[in-house]
Structures are given as C-alpha cells and as structure tokens.
C-alpha cells in the first residue's frame, strides 16, 4: 500500500515560486539533497501536473542520452526514467515518456487505486494547482514542507483556494544548517 507524499519548498510566506516562477530563493545544498534522497528511496512513482511534466519530459530524457551528463544528474534521470510517472491533465491527449500514466479525470479513484497497487510511495512535487486538488480530495497522506528563511512578498502560493480545514499530525521536524526547517506532517 503506497502513500502520497507531498514534497515542497516554500518561503516563510507560503509561496512555492516567485511571480515569474523564480525559485532562486530556495536553499538547496548537500544536506537537503541527502534528506530528499532518503524520501526518494521510499518512492515508486512521481506525480505531476501538465506543466511540470512537460518541463521534466523536455529535459531529463536528454540527460540520459548524453554520455557527458554530470553523474548526479545522470543518476536522477535514470531514477526518474525507471519509476512510474503519473501526469494529471484534462487537456493532454497522450504521453511519450516511458513508464508514464496519464490521468484525465476521476482523480481520487485513480490515485486511490494506485495507492493499492503500488508497494512504495508516490511523490507529488511542484504543481501548486495539482496540490490544491489533492488536498481538497484528501489524497495526501504525508506533507514534507521545507520552509525557507525568507519572505518573498509575492508569487505563486502553495496553498490557495483550498477552502477546507485539514487537521494534521506532526511526525517530525528537521532543522538544516542553512536555516531551512523541514516539517513532516501526517494526516489524521
């Protein structure tokens, strides 16, 4: 039985990116890289919205084809390639990348079925609009929110139009040397 894990980097004021999708304020170093790698070890599938998927699809397969790719990039590309990729989009008609499943509608049924089928977890990254749908449909089992020590003032909010309360259970926190605090919540 797999769980859906949300993994997000946010500013202290709750944005997942700046107004022009800037993410240069996100502090990401080897300590965080290891933290995320540990989470990734539990994962059998990654979930994206259309835009994030398109972005990933246009880049990572080429890293795999290029023999000169840096080692850490190559390893990530290889990992991505082998894992199931789940794309949620009402407008995409087909997907090209291997091991990719397109969900066009019935989001909750489809995701709950995947939870039953998969042994490992599913990782939801980026895609604020999709995150909102997942929260509304109670599909997220664990929240991994990395809070960056910066107020960015404006941008794309991670939590928007949710309009419902969700009670969480704190599982753990981790304070990183660069000032990021990793919050880890489960649902009740």
């Amino acid at each position: 039985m797999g769980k859906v894990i949300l993994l997000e980097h946010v500013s202290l004021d709750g944005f997942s990116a700046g107004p022009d999708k800037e993410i240069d304020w996100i502090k990401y170093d080897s300590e965080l890289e290891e933290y995320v790698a540990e989470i990734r070890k539990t994962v059998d599938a990654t979930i994206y919205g259309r835009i994030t998927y398109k972005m990933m699809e246009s880049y990572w397969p080429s890293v795999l084809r290029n023999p000169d790719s840096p080692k850490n990039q190559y390893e990530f590309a290889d990992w991505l390639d082998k894992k199931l990729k789940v794309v949620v989009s009402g407008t995409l008609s087909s997907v090209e990348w291997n091991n990719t499943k397109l969900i066009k509608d019935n989001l909750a049924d489809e995701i709950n079925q995947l939870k039953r089928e998969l042994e490992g977890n599913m990782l939801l990254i980026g895609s604020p609009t999709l995150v909102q749908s997942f929260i509304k449909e109670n599909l997220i089992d664990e929240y991994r929110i990395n809070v960056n020590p910066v107020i960015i003032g404006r941008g794309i909010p991670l939590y928007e139009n949710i309009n419902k309360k969700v009670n969480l259970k704190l599982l753990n926190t981790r304070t990183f040397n660069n000032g990021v605090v990793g919050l880890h919540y489960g649902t009740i």
Partner: protein
Amino acid sequence: MKKISVFNFVSVDGFFSGPNGEIDWFKTIGNDSEWQDYTKRSSEGAGSTLVFGHTTYEMMKSYWPTPDALKNDPDMAGVMNNSSKLVFSKTLKNVKEEENWKNIKLLNTINKEEIIDLKSKTDMTILGSGSIVQQFSNLDLIDEYTLVVVPIILGEGKAMFKGVKEISLKLADSKKFNNGIVVHHYKTK
C-alpha cells in the same frame, strides 16, 4: 538594545486567523506539559509593550478582562491586562481603561521615527494584527519573528505576511513540541 518582535500563531498554510478573524482553531492545540511551560515562560518573560491593530485589539479586549479568561488562563490574563498596550488605529478616537484592562495608549498613525524612539525605552511585541505586521515589516522595524505553527491547514483566512516586501531572515531556532506545535524563531539581522 530593545527590540520589536512579532509573536503569532499561524496555520501550516500561513493564516493567523480565519477570514472573519476566527481563532477557534487554537482549540485544536493539544495539552502538553512542555508546551505549557513554554507559554508560561514566554508570558512571564514578557515586560514588553504589546502592540495591536484595531481589529486584534478589540478581539483581545473582548476576552482577556472577562471572568472566563481570568478563570481559565489566569497567568496569561494577568500579563495581557497589566502589560502596556499600544493600539494603532486611524478610526478609534480613544481607548478606555477598565477593570482588569490597563495601560493603553492609542496612536493614529505609524511613524517610523516615533516608533524607534519608543523602542529606545521598551521592547515591543506585535500580536495578531496583520496590517501592523505588514507596515512595521515594510518600514524595517521588526527585529524578530516568532511563529507558532499549529498543525492544521485552514484553507482560507488572513495571511500573516500579506503585502510584506521581500526580507531575508536568519533562523535562530526551531523547536517542536509533542502536541504538534512547531515554534520558529527568526531574526532579521
């Protein structure tokens, strides 16, 4: 050197109150002895002038001097009622002292020089008051932010940092409690 702090309870999604100022979600905070010690120590160590905007002030006034508050939370009620209180409001004409509600000063405008002058005499702590947090932050008047993160997504409400400009912070400390509360403590310098 005295300092100006923000001390606020926030939801995981960054709201300090519901859309109509609701704080009923504070009730979801579970009992935990370490947490109680922490809040007791924070209130005892107060001595700070409490700073409010109009809305938060009225909310505080409607609760802390009441018999309910004095009975349920006597330590905090004592601190709230006796501490110096500074209220910012363009519309309030005056603020009245009452039994169990003392030491109130009203200012109609936020003037940076005046606030820096006040800060030379007393620490100040802003509670709630989104618009005051915003205006003080944008005038570079805040030295520290303490955020008490309650384990709940509210889904809608008043955003803690609405309209605040970009600010780089330094994490001084982050502490978790067994009832699921996480307290982040940031400094601006």
